[in-house]
């Protein structure tokens, strides 16, 4: 008999949100542990924001339950939930100063003045904005506003923190710096976080687990590396990062390896899959797991021949687009390990692309 586990800190149980016949969220169930940073990742319109708004209490599920720390949140208005949210583009109160913004929630709880002042100071210190306490939001840069928003949402010590596209309004460079800083602050406070983002990099760097959503459904839940290296289906493989997807047929099924025949090559995949011979499958290979050479690699498996159609230099790596015989364009990303190559590849070159037997994933759906 399996011992019954303690229920998760946040339980989303079979939640449905129906907007006049359209299921924006379709029977979603997620368990989130205390202290976890959980990301809902998907393109716009996938239902991730709808789900977040139901957690915050701005809309209520058509059916299903949301249970936080043993408490059913049904019917509880946003102002009574022990949940705070950092809004997309922050929604800071423009008429209040930084410290008044942070104190807003504390005042609503009727906290004594001296305690409010103390807490606000602590929060300002946490986000390193002490000098800006008296400023108005419009006098701050985007990054500073983001930190005020974070301080405001953490000030009440919520049981659950919701982040709606937390870094969406920042430019790329600042975003990368802030991602790590944000995680550090969240870990210092030890709050459980559910974040919504369309930016996979953001989800990968910040979250401990990610749920991939599409059209109201959850396609896969897992740690970032799981999602990237073992995507559950074609959609996830294609959505996260770049991938070369080749359609083929399973021709040889063994416990320790399988052979898949595709138009351009035969794949030797170094792990078993659950399938039957003759079944149509897709093989996914990530661009960075592929190697380009002028010479034909040994063996008969795991290599394709093609012409360089395009190459893009990114500094740290170069991306090659190789036109294969079947018409498929193969994406390859090669690290620029040395500063120059004796025999540089260029447009129109005939090359071979190869990969190892463990670098592919076979997708059956």
């Amino acid at each position, binding site marked *: 008999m399996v011992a019954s586990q303690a229920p998760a800190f946040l339980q989303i149980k079979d939640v449905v949100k129906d907007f006049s016949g359209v299921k924006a969220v379709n029977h979603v169930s997620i368990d989130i542990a205390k202290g976890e940073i959980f990301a809902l990742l998907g393109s716009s319109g996938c239902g991730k924001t709808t789900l977040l708004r139901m957690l915050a209490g701005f809309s209520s599920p058509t059916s299903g339950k949301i249970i936080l720390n043993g408490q059913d949140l049904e019917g509880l208005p946003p102002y009574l939930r022990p949940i705070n949210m950092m809004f997309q583009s922050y929604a800071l109160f423009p*008429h209040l100063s930084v410290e008044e913004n942070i104190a807003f929630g504390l005042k609503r*709880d009727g906290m004594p003045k001296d305690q409010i002042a103390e807490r606000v100071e602590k929060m300002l210190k946490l986000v390193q904005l002490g000098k800006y306490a008296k400023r108005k939001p419009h006098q701050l840069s985007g990054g500073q506003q983001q930190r005020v928003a974070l301080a405001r949402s953490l000030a009440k010590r919520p049981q659950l923190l919701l982040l709606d596209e937390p870094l969406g309004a920042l430019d790329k460079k600042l975003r990368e710096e802030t991602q790590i800083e944000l995680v550090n602050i969240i870990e210092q406070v030890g709050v459980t976080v559910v974040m919504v983002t369309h930016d996979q990099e953001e989800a990968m760097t910040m979250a401990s687990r990610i749920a991939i959503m599409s059209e109201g459904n959850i396609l896969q839940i897992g740690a970032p590396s799981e999602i990237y290296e073992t995507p559950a289906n074609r959609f996830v493989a294609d959505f996260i990062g770049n991938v070369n997807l080749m359609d083929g047929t399973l021709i040889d099924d063994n416990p320790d390896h399988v052979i898949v025949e595709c138009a351009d090559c035969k794949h030797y995949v170094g792990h078993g899959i659950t399938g039957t011979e003759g079944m149509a499958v897709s093989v996914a290979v990530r661009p960075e797991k592929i190697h380009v050479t002028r010479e034909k690699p040994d063996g008969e498996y795991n290599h394709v021949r093609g012409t360089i159609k395009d190459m893009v230099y990114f500094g740290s790596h170069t991306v090659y687009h190789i036109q294969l015989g079947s018409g498929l364009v193969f994406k390859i990303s090669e690290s620029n390990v040395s500063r120059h190559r004796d025999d540089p590849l260029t447009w129109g070159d005939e090359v071979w692309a190869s990969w190892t037997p463990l670098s592919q994933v076979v997708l059956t759906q």
Partner: protein
Amino acid sequence: MSPQAVLTQLRNSKLLSGRSAVIGVPYVWLLVFFLLPFLIVLKISVSEMETVHFKDLLTYKDGLLQLTLKFSNYEFIAEDPLYFKVYLASLKYAAATTLFCLLIGYPFSYFMARAKPSIQPALLMMVMLPFWTSFLLRVYAWKGLLGENGWVANLLEWLHVDHLLLALGVIPALGKFMNSPFSLVLGMTYTYLPFMILPLYANLAKMDLRLLEAAADLGATPWTAFWKVTVPLSKAGIIAGSMLVFIPCVGEFVIPELLGGPETLMIGRVLWDEFFSNNDWPMASSVAVVMILLIIVPLAIFNKYQAEAQEARS
């Protein structure tokens, strides 16, 4: 110089650049139709009457340029308690009207701004609709509505509102609503309400509703969120609407004339009398100048205070 060269030169000169032309138009308009007439009024107010026309301010006599200014009108205004009382009454009724317009207009604008976008134009139309009927006619209609056996008067009587109004001292007797401070303020509130609603609506409609969600998220009930977020953020609309109501109300003439009574003497009436009954243009101009100062000085102080507060915060 060729015509082309002249044109280029004109174009290059700052006077004719498109930018200054665009900015210049409203300035010229204000200069010609506001500042200049005001200066004329100011000049008249310090001029002496010489039977049918004014004595020139500047006279050239015995090789000396003489400037003659007459301040006796202003002295008279300062000394005669009548003027003080009338100015005070004007400010009082204008303030009361502004307050009522705000009390009625704010909820109205609020619900209009929060109504479904598809019905907002219709609501806006309803606010504007009264303007299609002559203003004079609409004010005049109140005479019938509030007069003896007017249905509004009957309704108020039936509801015993007149007891309350009498207790407040704004009607002369039970069942008598006309020609009282009550009918005056009612008429002015009715007339000027759209001027309060429109700027408030414009302000409330563009408010970021996510701020209310943020307030709710931080523990504010809808009521608290309204007072702590919506109202402070609509301050600009409240000020604009109040100005649009208060300023014309101070100098209002027609409504007090039609709906007011002997005790609701306002400055517009005094101005009329000075101009057209007494034919004392310098005196009338002085009264007008004082009225303008009465409105502008507090406004200027308020503006300065606002600007300073803004600066102090930054």
